[in-house]
């Protein structure tokens, strides 16, 4: 029971970390960034480069943010910006970008599975259960990410402007807010968060040119059922991630792997707003 609760909480934490960047971009720009998986892969390789350089494995996180952020800037400027009026085309173009990112990484690093140093290993005893220390640490990191993002959105001028653009872009522009810049910064931040997510999952996952892709669809579905709120994303991660763990444990891991996508699709069919408030 305790193990299962920990499984649910840690799974939700991982999903949350993976989906926040996508949520931010979707919230502000109303487009789905299919390059999110590719940017996660980039983050994973940033972690690889960091540990190969012999640096502290925790440094992988800022390095990955940098990699993701810089790629995000280029993507926003040259690919996403011309497509604001064509949201479905933006999906396709960012999907094409993820192909490009994957192939460039393959050419640079090879197709092979790479190994990164985990910043934390071993287990922790918690409520009489010995549990993976890194997974537990991820709960803290995801919480910190969520709080930092909330602080950014709630406590800074940029955050305020970002929220203003999400709520009513024309009104924001009329008040002198450069919404194109806000979009650019948001996409950059979203891409940086994707990079961070990629670095965060490397101790659990392998580092290979496709590492981000399996995460994409689940993250995408979680964002769609969450609307544009960090809070409803948390709820979605706990509910759908929890359902995934329960189905995988009590029925089959294969069905578990489909749980988030299928449940989210059905939830959206019944309640188009998903977990978002009215």
């Amino acid at each position, binding site marked *: 029971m305790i193990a299962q609760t920990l499984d649910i909480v840690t799974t939700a934490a991982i999903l949350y970390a993976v989906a926040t960047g996508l949520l931010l971009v979707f919230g502000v720009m109303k487009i789905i960034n299919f390059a999110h998986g590719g940017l996660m892969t980039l983050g994973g390789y940033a972690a690889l480069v960091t540990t190969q350089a012999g640096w502290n494995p925790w440094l992988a996180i800022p390095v990955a943010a940098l990699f993701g952020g810089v790629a995000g800037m280029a993507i926003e400027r040259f690919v996403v910006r011309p497509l604001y009026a064509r949201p479905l085309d933006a999906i396709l173009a960012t999907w094409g970008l993820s192909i490009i990112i994957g192939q460039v990484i393959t050419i640079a690093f090879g197709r092979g599975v790479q190994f990164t140093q985990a910043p934390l290993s071993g287990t922790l005893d918690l409520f009489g259960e010995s549990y993976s220390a890194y997974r537990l640490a991820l709960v803290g990191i995801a919480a910190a990410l969520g709080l930092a993002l909330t602080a950014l959105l709630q406590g800074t001028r940029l955050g305020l402007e970002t929220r*203003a653009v999400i709520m009513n872009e024309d*009104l924001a*522009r009329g008040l*002198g807010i450069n919404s194109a810049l806000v979009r650019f910064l948001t996409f950059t931040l979203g891409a940086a968060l994707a990079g961070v997510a990629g670095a965060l999952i490397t101790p659990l996952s392998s580092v290979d040119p496709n590492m981000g892709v399996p995460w994409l669809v689940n993250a995408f579905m979680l964002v769609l059922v969450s609307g544009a709120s960090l809070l409803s994303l948390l709820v979605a991660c706990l509910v759908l991630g929890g359902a995934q763990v329960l189905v995988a444990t009590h029925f089959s891991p294969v069905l578990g792997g489909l749980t988030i996508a299928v449940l989210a699709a059905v939830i959206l069919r019944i309640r188009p707003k998903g977990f978002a408030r009215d």
Partner: protein
Amino acid sequence: MITPHVDTHHAPALEVAGLSSGYAGAVVVREVSLAIGAGEILAVLGKNGMGKSTLLKAMMGFLPKMAGSVTIAGTAATRLSPHRVARLGVGYVAQEKALFQDLTVEENLKLAVRGPDFAAALAEVEASFPFLLQRLKQRAGTLSGGEQKMLLMARSLATGARLLLVDEITEGLQPSVIDRLAGVIRSARERHGTTMLLVEQHLPFALAVADRWAVLDRGEIAEAGASSEPDARARVLKHLSV
């Protein structure tokens, strides 16, 4: 076409020349020219659907300009995007959805006020609508309709804007609130010399606060004059009558 008279003692704070605009295919505003001197208040009147809101949106850069030019305090603003126009010191108050309902009063103010001096902005709010200072942490959407309009006015004044473009601020308001707004507008002009273009359907309010008026009919300026002229009311009513 009738161009409202320009007071030559002031440099024009806003000059619109031959402006045409509208929505996909439909020209709503046709070759409108007008100029407002610094510190002057112009009321643009007219029935619904005559292009008043469209005129403001086009000046702000929300709608494409099919022809003509807009100059704000000597700066060409014809091709600027809305946020650039706003940064020229233009405060725009839209008719609908002009507040972030889910943000607090304070956040609504902060969004409009650029630069570090938020305290000065609050002082300006205190001078016009002091009750708002007690409601800073309240969500704007929970204010009453009249309070929301007052917040709108306060917000545009707090920015220190030199030119206000205000779209039907009096719509749906109680007379007491309208009177209060009129007072604040007069006082703001006295203290800061703020220039204003008020789109209005409320004739007494418009004539009470504005120096001059212009009537927009089918997207064109049909008539214009000074508020002080004794027949102003009758001339406007002719265009507005049922």
